[in-house]
């Protein structure tokens, strides 16, 4: 290989890695918000992604345009999140282990309800942008690039909320110390509710935005579930922005890189093993502060 082709290959990997990093970040963001801010591992996250995809499909079938379908799907999954939080989750916030099991039970129930409501036939949604941008000899899928951009914008927006607005700073205080947050005049119960619903809406958004590039079946969200967990945990609790990005890169981007040199199975196994090793040596994530 000449220097030029090597350079080209590296750049091409970088582009793929970046795309996949932002797609994984989008899939993991809802989990990161809920886990990072209120300490709930939402095992139903995958089912919520699935639900987002199905709601989008249902809206499109009813004749809504894609953009509107996405908004309805986000609201729909948010509503499901609200019901679940109000009926169950809010009673267990001080017991992370119980919430893990509860949300996992919810995952089972939601998956079965999806099967009953939508059947088990595979559904698909036509890709809104079925072409690629040619750029310096690279081809970047338009729709995926759009999803990655939205994901980046979302990360930025969440950063603004948490670091620049007073409400965001109070919510972050909540993660540190609940009594202090109460003294700051924060309605703790309401804030927990808002965060959980926001997490559900983000899961719904991920499902809605990814629905055009995926097969929509009752378990489709699960393939992102374990990857999302690793993104969040490797990134570190509470490290919403940097953590989610670093985690996504480690899980998605590095798999792309390993996949270039070895078989896909080995790449996947290496990435999981790597995630476990990172956890072992940095139990609070790669951006350990203390």
């Amino acid at each position, binding site marked *: 290989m000449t220097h030029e082709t090597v350079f080209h290959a590296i750049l091409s990997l970088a582009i793929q890695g970046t795309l996949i990093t932002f797609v994984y970040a989008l899939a993991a963001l809802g989990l990161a918000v809920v886990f990072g801010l209120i300490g709930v591992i939402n095992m139903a996250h995958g089912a919520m992604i699935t639900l987002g995809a199905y709601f989008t499909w249902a809206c499109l079938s009813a004749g809504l345009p894609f953009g509107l379908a996405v908004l309805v799907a986000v609201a729909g999954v948010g509503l499901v999140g609200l019901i679940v939080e109000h009926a169950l989750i809010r009673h267990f916030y001080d017991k992370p282990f*119980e919430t893990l099991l509860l949300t996992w039970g919810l995952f089972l129930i939601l998956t079965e309800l999806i099967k009953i409501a939508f059947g088990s036939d595979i559904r698909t949604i036509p890709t809104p942008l079925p072409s690629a941008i040619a750029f310096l000899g690279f081809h970047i899928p338009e729709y995926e690039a759009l999803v990655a951009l939205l994901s980046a914008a979302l990360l930025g927006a969440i950063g603004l909320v948490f670091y620049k607005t007073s409400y965001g700073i109070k919510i972050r205080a909540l993660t540190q110390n609940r009594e202090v947050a109460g003294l700051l005049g924060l309605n703790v119960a309401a804030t927990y509710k808002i965060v959980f619903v926001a997490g559900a809406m983000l899961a719904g958004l991920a499902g809605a935005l990814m629905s055009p590039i995926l097969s929509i079946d009752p378990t489709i969200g699960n393939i992102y579930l374990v990857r999302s967990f690793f993104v969040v945990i490797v990134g570190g609790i509470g490290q919403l922005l940097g953590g989610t990005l670093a985690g996504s890169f480690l899980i998605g981007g590095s798999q792309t890189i390993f996949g270039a040199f070895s078989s896909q199975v080995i790449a996947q196994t290496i990435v999981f093993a790597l995630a476990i090793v990172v956890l072992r040596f940095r139990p609070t994530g790669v951006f350990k502060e203390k």
Partner: protein
Amino acid sequence: MSNTRPVPPMPRISLRSESAAAIVVFAVLALLPLMMGGYVIYVLPQYLIYGVLAMSLGMLWGYAGILSFGQAAFFALGAYAMGLAMKAGFGAGDGYLGLLAAIVVGAGLAFLVGYFLFSAGVRDIYFVLITLALSIMVQQIAISQSSLTGGFNGMYIPRMDLALGPLGRVSLAHDRAIYYLVLPVTVAIYAGLRRLTRSDFGKVLVGIRENEGRTLSLGFDTSWYKTIAFTISGAVACFAGALYGAHAEFVSPSLASVAFSTEVVIWVAIGGRQSLLGALLGGLGVAALSNYLDGLSPVFWQLILGGIFVAVIIAFKGGIAGALGRLVARKDDAHG
């Protein structure tokens, strides 16, 4: 787990009534093949093996407070160990070699993973997620290493003979023969785990579950205790897998799936995580019910199972065994 909750007093009466219940259950199971034959006698050993798998998690989760979503990975490894041993062609000792290899592999892997993680303070939900990943990795490797494992298509495992030295060999091809092998093994594992949980070691595990910091400050090397508990659990799950392989005569990668691992968690939660008999009967009962009810209404059965699971987590932390235990204790209080 919450650190503020006091250690629940384990009433002596419940231990005694569990022993009584266990004796009744095992006696019924021992007599069953004399009264009936056919499919029930074929399939019961399989459910008993599921029960052993459930106990491997019950011990870990109920006593040490460590939840594993990776029990199926060990179970599948055990079945593969049995399959490879039967292929190795050591003659009369094949089956024993398989069982032994399963124990060694299960204990070895669990020890390595456990030591690696517990010694660094990885715990609770982090550990759960790693065991989840472990399941996925074992499954992927089993699929891709097809020259060894048969890959996705699976591996045939000829049923082992029971070589009894000078007494000759007993073929396990007959339903009753393998039934009367699996049942005493199940009883032995139950008794062994029971003893373990009531020993000083078991008390330390309960201490860790309730308050790891306090147990550590009392001078116990908690990460070591957790590693040993996980090792034992892995060995039991893997051994159960080897027995399963011998019984089903087949193993494929889906045996290591997360779906099966999580099924084990359901068995134990419903049966009762703080009672080994509860876990055993949870595995046996839920698997048997699934077999029969699934045929009637598959979708709704899964939905109901999910609902029961959520109800158990919310309201009946002890599962069925816990609820029964409380009932017995209350009755005894009233009479005593």
